[in-house]
């Protein structure tokens, strides 16, 4: 058994969720290589425990890093492994199925648990159902739901091997630009505290003032329901849920969010949930540890005064 984890650099950074993917990899094998694509500061990565070798293909442009351009070279590298893992984030979801399909192999998305090297658990139906599946493929391609695995310890000291990666850029696709969000929402997936607002905020101004103000006060990241995102109160990358981010902070505060199954799908693994809603029958309370029934526009300022 030999595992490869692929990690893409963005802005010279490697997503710290790599440490969680490593824990998943160690449930499969102790032989575990990491392939980093793109220029990045690897000082953190080298300290992660249990990495056999780190291969670094630093000389790649944003264009090279597109899934369409990486597929063939990664498919060739994958052939040297029994398992190829990526975090189930926007890079992993984009790239791994394509490489698997190119090799005529299946892929398992959002792995929550590893029962054996070929049996995995994954969510279906917005997480209402957990399926256990067996893969018959020669190489298992898995995207890992990182909130379900702890981060490895930082006691490692893996060596970095530079790697040349020949990327086939045939100009069928070009990277034009990227627009990254403001700092406070970037960390949503790894935040310790999240304040989420829903449609009930009524306007972008109230959302920024009430949810934004509250989040700053308690050092939380900002989340939102799809209804709030669709209404333009919050950025799309703040959306929590089946089609947004999957989060598991220590404290999740849902403010004026009804608790639709698709929203619950993204936050039900939070350690503690506090729900504030003016409807005592709101579904969100069924998934909350603590509830307060009241008008958010009165309740939130009051809470902030008490902190």
């Amino acid at each position, binding site marked *: 058994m030999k595992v490869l984890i692929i990690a893409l650099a963005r802005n010279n950074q490697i997503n710290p969720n790599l440490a969680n993917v490593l824990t998943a990899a160690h449930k499969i094998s102790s032989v575990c290589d990491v392939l980093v694509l793109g220029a990045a500061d690897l000082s953190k990565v080298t300290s992660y425990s249990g990495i056999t070798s780190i291969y670094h293909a630093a000389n790649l442009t944003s264009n090279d890093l597109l899934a369409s351009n990486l597929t063939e070279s990664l498919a060739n590298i994958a052939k040297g492994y029994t398992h190829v893992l990526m975090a189930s984030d*926007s890079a992993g979801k984009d790239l791994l199925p*394509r490489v698997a399909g190119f090799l005529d192999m299946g892929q398992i998305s959002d792995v929550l648990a590893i029962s054996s090297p070929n049996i995995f658990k994954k969510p279906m139906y917005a997480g209402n159902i957990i399926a256990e599946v067996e893969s018959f493929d020669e190489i298992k391609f898995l995207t890992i739901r990182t909130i379900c695995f702890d981060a490895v310890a930082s006691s490692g000291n893996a060596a970095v091997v530079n790697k040349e990666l020949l990327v086939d850029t045939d100009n069928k696709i070009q990277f034009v630009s990227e627009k990254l969000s403001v700092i406070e929402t970037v960390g949503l997936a790894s935040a310790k505290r999240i304040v989420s607002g829903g449609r009930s905020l009524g306007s972008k101004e109230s959302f920024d003032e009430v949810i934004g103000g509250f989040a700053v006060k308690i050092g939380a990241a900002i989340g939102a329901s799809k209804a709030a995102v669709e209404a333009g109160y919050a950025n799309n990358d703040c959306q929590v849920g089946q*089609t947004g981010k999957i989060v598991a902070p220590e404290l999740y505060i849902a403010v004026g969010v009804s608790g639709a199954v698709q929203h619950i799908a993204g936050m039900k693994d939070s350690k503690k949930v506090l729900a504030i809603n003016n409807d005592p029958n709101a579904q969100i309370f069924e998934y909350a540890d603590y509830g307060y029934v009241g008008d958010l526009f009165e309740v939130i300022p009051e*809470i902030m005064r008490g902190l």
Partner: protein
Amino acid sequence: MKVLVAAKRVVDPNVRVRVKADHSNVEIEHSKMSLNPFDENAIEEAVRLKEKGLVTEIVALSIGTIKSEETLRTALARGCDRAILVESNENYEPLNIAKIFAHIAKEEKPDLILLGKQAIDDDANQMAQMLAGKLNLPQVTCASSLDVNGNSIRVVREIDAGNETLEINLPAVISADLVLNEPRFIKLPQLMMAKKKPIEKKLAADLGLDLSAHSRLISVTDGEVKKQCKFLTNLNDVVNVIKANGV
């Protein structure tokens, strides 16, 4: 420009699915079924491009049991011109769906293949990517806007940290995010008109493809975690819950 869109039949998003007593699968025989919401976005986008005069024909493809004909009628009512049903009683995994899709794409030769980024039953988010990999076509997943310029499309793709803009040359595969557009309501006349549009039927078994399983479902369990909510009536207690988290 010719567009091939996907139309998967799935359990309606408002239905709570249940696990079968023997845990072999979910109980969906009597559930309300719908067109996958993400495919609705893909179809809506294709129809809007047609209304702008940028698309000449929209072909909808569904792979499933004969009941998927109903789903294709919805796709036709939404503005697709014709439909293809590849019939099978197998519950194929995304890889095999991608193979069937690739087979039809080779026959139909669309300039653009537009699909939902995921289906709300298995939530896999794989098919568009596998299809693009198989056809060796460029892909953009999770698209939130398309701007067609002749033979290329400028696509905004939603990513965890924000979004990125990519320029993709046709032929290409694009998967739709829910934010791509707001699908329109369909009215009775469109439903009536859809009845007259053609649905071509093929059997998956007749396509000459290797559709053997690459995985198997062992069992399913209920993933719901309901909690016992402690209702607080004093805001001081709410403040203390937050403080207990280290604030």
